[in-house]
């Protein structure tokens, strides 16, 4: 069945009557509105992905000398230029790259880098300075400033990352729209929500609890009802990360009015025997992303999608004593999208001759410049409101 017909038959004809009254109006997009509704998918590779073995400075002797047993040989890579190559488990990404749909930004980091997973993750998620502890995330502040509904930022995961928490509004964590919907079907809570109106709520903690409950309910029903519109038949790899991306594809193609999607893939903390573990994860990442992009293209939504992949830090240039690498600093970031302005290698490669005191790559691009670019150039909103500082905009989009 065509999407349009399905809409007519199911939602307009019967489904609407079932949607609770507190969902005002039709908050999903008609096919005409759908095209051009831009969104961002943010993917965190948790644990600190080794960027040097992901996008490899293959001609650099320092790279090979610093990593006698874990450096990739040329035959184990997919050539980009004479100096740079993808890890050969990134086949799907390489294909996108050749189509001009990938931009690689090197040496992304921040001043005085923290090498703690937790701290550095917080720094990336809150867009703070190293010595600044913020309790709101950058996507959360985007919700505060620019959105009306929590579901405009969805994390496809069990719990909500700090990135998604704002002062006034939090994003919604949805591991599975059916599951979320099910938890809200508890008759006792349903009755309580039916008794609750926004106007009744105070600004105090009690009001906040009821407000969150109300938002959970309205978002859960909205996401559940709307995402029923489309279920993909594109084949995805069988792993939990791919399942999350598939959920995101269903949401985007169904026409959820969501601007930001968030998900993560963990396990990149490769202190020991890095080659096997990282390659396996990169394969998972690449194949899952390949399926997602294919799905979006098929439904003409890839041109409206921008995918940012980052990790909380890169890893040390020199390998350690156990065929692994320790926590490092600056790293590469991948931008994938159907409407890139500047595809390819965005800036200079890491300078392995000029490392910091720990032997880590120095940053030349502040990660918040990437956020600022996405907010300003892609979502077309005032980035300074959200990042509190005017970061230089880049040219990738």
């Amino acid at each position, binding site marked *: 069945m065509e999407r349009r017909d399905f809409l007519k038959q199911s939602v307009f004809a019967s489904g609407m009557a079932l949607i609770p009254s507190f969902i005002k109006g039709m908050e999903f997009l008609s096919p005409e509105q759908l095209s051009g509704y831009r969104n961002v998918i943010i993917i965190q590779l948790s644990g600190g992905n080794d960027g040097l073995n992901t996008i490899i400075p293959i001609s650099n002797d320092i790279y090979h000398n610093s990593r006698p047993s874990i450096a990739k040989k040329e035959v184990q890579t997919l050539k980009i230029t004479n100096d740079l190559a993808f890890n050969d488990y990134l086949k799907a990404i390489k294909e996108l790259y050749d189509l001009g749909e990938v931009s690689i930004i090197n040496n992304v980091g921040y001043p005085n880098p923290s090498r703690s997973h937790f701290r550095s993750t917080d720094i990336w998620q809150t867009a703070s300075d190293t010595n600044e*502890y913020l309790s709101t995330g950058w996507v959360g502040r985007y919700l505060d400033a620019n959105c009306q509904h929590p579901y405009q930022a969805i994390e496809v995961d069990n719990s909500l990352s700090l990135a998604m928490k704002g002062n006034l509004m939090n994003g919604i*964590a949805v591991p599975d729209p059916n599951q979320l919907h099910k938890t809200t079907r508890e008759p006792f809570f349903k*009755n309580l929500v039916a008794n609750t109106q926004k106007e009744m709520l105070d600004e105090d*903690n009690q009001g*906040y609890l*009821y407000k*969150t409950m109300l938002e*959970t309910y309205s978002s859960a029903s909205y996401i559940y009802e709307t995402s029923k519109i489309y279920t993909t038949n594109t084949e995805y790899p069988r792993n939990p990360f791919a399942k999350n991306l598939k959920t995101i594809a269903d949401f985007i193609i169904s026409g959820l009015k969501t601007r930001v999607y968030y998900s993560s893939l963990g396990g990149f903390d490769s202190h020991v025997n890095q080659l096997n573990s990282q390659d396996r994860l990169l394969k998972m990442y690449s194949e899952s992303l390949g399926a997602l992009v294919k799905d979006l293209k098929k439904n003409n939504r890839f041109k409206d999608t921008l995918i940012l992949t980052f990790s909380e830090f890169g890893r040390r240039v020199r390998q350690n004593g156990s065929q692994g690498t320790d926590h490092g600093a600056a790293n590469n970031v991948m931008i994938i999208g159907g409407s890139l302005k500047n595809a390819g290698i965005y800036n200079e490669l890491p300078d392995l001759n000029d490392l910091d005191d720990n032997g880590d790559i120095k940053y030349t691009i502040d990660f918040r410049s990437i956020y600022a670019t996405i907010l300003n150039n892609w979502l077309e909103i005032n980035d300074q409101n959200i990042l509190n500082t005017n970061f230089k905009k880049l040219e990738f989009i």
Partner: protein
Amino acid sequence: MNTSLSDKQIQHLYWRTGFGITSNELKTTRKFTKNQIIDRLFLENQKASPLHMNFGALSKSPKNLSREERKEARKLRIQKMNELNFLWFSRLLNTDQILREKMTLFFHDHFAVRLRTPRACIHLNNVIRKHALGNFGDMLIEVSKSPAMLLFLNNRQNRKDHPNENFARELMELFTLGRDNKYNENDIKEAARAFTGWNFNKEGQFIVKKNHHDYGEKTLLGRTGNFTGEDILKILLEEKQTALYITQKLYSYLVNETIDKNRVEKLAKVFYDSNYNLEILLREILSSNWFYDSKNIGNKIKSPIELMVGLSRTFHIQYEDPKVLLYLQRKLNQILFFPPNVAGWTGGKAWIDNSTLMLRLKLASVTLNSGVIEWQDENDNPENKMMRQEMNKAVKSKFQKKVKATPDWKRFLTSIEQKGKSNLISFILQPELSEMARGVVSQLNEDDTKNFIIELLSLPEYQLC
């Protein structure tokens, strides 16, 4: 000021200084005046008993281990961290020393350390417990010298030639003066030099490595001298700002997140003049009249630990499988011995997002009734009702297998004094009922006391204390 307290006020005192109160305790406590209740509280909490654990193979020095043994040790450390978590959790469930444990929790968050070294973690926890009702200055000094803190904030890497500022920065920003109060970047650099060489030996004893220590002159907060680390701590304690910062934090923990500036300044003066005596500060707060003002009652979002421990203590819940407790802590974003970072848990509204809230609201039905809230919709037809009952049965058996928590309903039900609606509401819920809750409660049937109570515990009001 030697007045008596209402039941609600006694419950308030016990929620803020502990994890709520049982009916039996309430019956006993009611006979006393306010000051007597507070005296009893301090009497019960006088002696600190440390947590104990057998570390087995972990006591060996890692240098003498083979590769295989080292791998085993890594596994064992993770296992011991989980055991440690359960050890403290059990203490919280069963202790009579609620105030001491509650203050230990406060400083566990204040001196937040996140490590995978169980011996260092239990040691720090016991240091904090020992001083929790004693002297903050003594606690600060002993914590600063503990292996856990030396490890966590990299003071072992802090050497004359390569100062590491991590500890010095957090010391001022988080442990004493508070962010951006009185100190600047240069003070951090100078203080870091004073802590160079601070380390510990194989036995976990504090030592100063003389060849790593910078004996030169340092300037801190306008004072100059050949300061040692101890001197820096003393100087920071001499700052009234430190007393103010700690008092503010404790006020928002015990009284209200909205700070009453005048009141806190007065309290901070008492604290400072007592040379940082925590018991004196606590007595000042708890014996005041304003502590029991209705605007300070039932307005605080319980931390996940307060919520879980409070519920478990009230209903005498036994947990068969410690993993369940760990799972719940993880899902609710507060794992004992595992704060998110050196700044501790954000707390307050930050505990709540859509997924944590739904689990929190379901927690009572999960632990007390195998996941079921037996709510009947009046408008449901008999078929639906039957279907629901069948579904509930299925849910129950599924949860029973998973959660393995057993409440002692009999003990609870025989101890409560009056089973009337309003009595139960007042005993179970600290805040006044919201309009929404009143609407729902009016439809509830109190004849089935057990279900009525589970329904009350499933209201957002139970999330507050």
